[in-house]
């Protein structure tokens, strides 16, 4: 049962899946860390990005990895606009309202996709989708290795952005002390929207990484976001490091529990973990702010 021949590939595959979770969770935790809200529209936005990548391939023959170059800025602006012109004004600065507005957005986006594209599940065929990379005694699907590498790259870029640019510093300032940041001349509404935009842009990247091996339908994003919620809670709301490590950890747990318990119960493992962490240690393992 515990032979390394099975265990090691399962572990590595879990890490690869975990990379996508980490990327989705990264957007979620960033938004939480700065705006202190849970973006319930995250799943619907991921689905929208997956559809965008799908149609970029179908209509223009763009490889998802190429499409990412265009979709990432596009989704940054979508996220920016949503926060600046919809969520921000509609919520009147009340947390409870923000929950409802993002939930409303999720319902609207998801069902607009359902209305436009029906419930059909779509996939794209790429020549390299089934290529594997040999790694020790494990064979890993090439798209998943690319996903893992990209996630590391995105995390690095984000870290540099936060650390060394003025915008990054402003984001951190707003996360720490909103009023103080405002008094020092930072445009808080703009920074909120930028953060939301970055979080949404992460989804566009995740969508492009997913598409070579995953399907898309109007509910496709939800599965990832429920996992991402778990990751974010596990890693500590607002903690970037927590999101990355939490994502990888959950990927491994899912892969191993899937191996030993079967697919649908593997899903339950994640939720049970989620509830336990929420009840026992809501600040997560890395309970610090972005």
């Amino acid at each position, binding site marked *: 049962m515990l032979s390394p021949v099975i265990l090691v590939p399962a572990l590595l595959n879990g890490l690869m899946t975990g990379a996508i979770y980490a990327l989705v969770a990264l957007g979620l935790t960033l938004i939480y860390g700065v705006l202190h809200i849970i973006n319930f529209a995250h799943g619907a936005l991921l689905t929208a990005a997956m559809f965008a990548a799908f149609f970029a391939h179908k209509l223009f023959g763009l490889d998802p990895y190429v499409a990412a170059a265009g979709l990432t800025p596009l989704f940054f602006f979508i996220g920016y606009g949503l926060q600046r012109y919809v969520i921000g004004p509609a919520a009147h600065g*009340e947390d409870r309202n923000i*929950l409802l507005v993002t939930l409303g957005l999720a*319902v609207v986006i998801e069902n*607009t996709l*359902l209305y436009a594209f029906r419930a059909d599940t779509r996939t794209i065929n790429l020549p390299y989708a089934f290529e594997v990379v040999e790694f020790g005694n494990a064979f890993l699907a090439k798209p998943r290795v690319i996903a893992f590498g990209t996630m590391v790259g995105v995390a690095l870029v984000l870290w540099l952005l936060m650390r060394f640019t003025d915008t990054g510093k402003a984001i951190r300032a707003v996360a720490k002390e909103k009023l103080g940041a405002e008094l020092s001349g930072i445009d808080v509404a703009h920074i909120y929207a930028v953060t939301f935009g970055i979080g949404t842009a992460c989804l566009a990247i995740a969508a492009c990484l997913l598409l070579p091996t995953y399907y898309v339908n109007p509910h496709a994003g939800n599965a990832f976001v429920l996992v991402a919620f778990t990751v974010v809670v596990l890693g500590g709301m607002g903690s970037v490091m927590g999101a990355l490590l939490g994502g990888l950890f959950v990927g491994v747990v899912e892969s191993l529990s899937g191996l030993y318990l079967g697919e649908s119960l593997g899903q339950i493992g994640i939720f049970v973990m989620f*509830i336990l962490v*929420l009840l026992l240690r809501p600040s997560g393992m890395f309970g610090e702010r972005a």
Partner: protein
Amino acid sequence: MKGVSPILVVIALLALVPIVTTSPVVLNFLVTTLMIALVGQGWNLLGGYGGQYSFGHAAFFGTGAYATAILQLRYGVNAWLGFAAAIAAGALVGAIIGAMSFRAGLKGSYFALVTLAFAEVLRIVASVAPVTGAGVGLLIKLDLRPEAFQFQSRLPFYFIALALVAASLIVVRLIEDSRFGAYLVAVRENEEAAKALGVNVVVVKFTAMSVSAAITAAGGGFYAQYFLFVDSGIAYGPWISIEALLAPIIGGAGTVFGPLLGALVVKVLGEIAKLLTGDAPGLDLIIYGGVLILVVAFAPRGIAGLIVSVRGVFQKARDTAALERSRG
């Protein structure tokens, strides 16, 4: 009992509807609307009055629906008794989830998340467990006798739904007027202050959640008897969690009539959408989501709040006019 009289008037008016029409289409529309009003009233007690926004009231709706069906099918319990037990089962699930989350101090986003997660866990369990019919679901056997909570026509269902809604309205009205209701609103407005004044915040929220869950479970049990079919997607699916909060938020959270008003508005909008586009999938929900955002943005206290403020504007205008007259 003066606070209850408006409720009796509204219910009496609704009870007269079958005199005007007994068309199955209209009755079906009203029955589903009342069912959502009932489910929403459960949410309203905890969310509207207590300020604890649950995103997983499906956990209680589904428990009510499954308990009603399972007790009949697997244990041969009478449908009415099963329905009563389902309400108790809902209250129990609410008590368990409430005890765990409130003792852990979860509120705001965290509370919304944990309720969502509980509903999802129940959905997944129900989709694999044999007792719930797993992926196939449960079909309640056709047995068209009043003793079996089944009827030839929709009319008796309409009156039962109306009676359940009336009961929920009265319960919430009485709570609103009670000391407990005042505690609940205090917790919503400022939990720290309420605590400082000696309100046992955890117990208040826990009690509200149990009653809230019982009301919503009644809606689920009614669903099972009305449609005679339950599966994991219907019972524990996110759709009912959303409709449960949509009705009170749109109608006016924290008001007695909010959920009923909201359910009517939501269902009428849904029907209009269907008429305009011939039942395209998703369109009704697009409209619901849009209305939800608009209400939060422009009428934070829902339609009930809107009515109050419009009345206030007229009152003010009348006062000014009277004042000017008196000045001559």
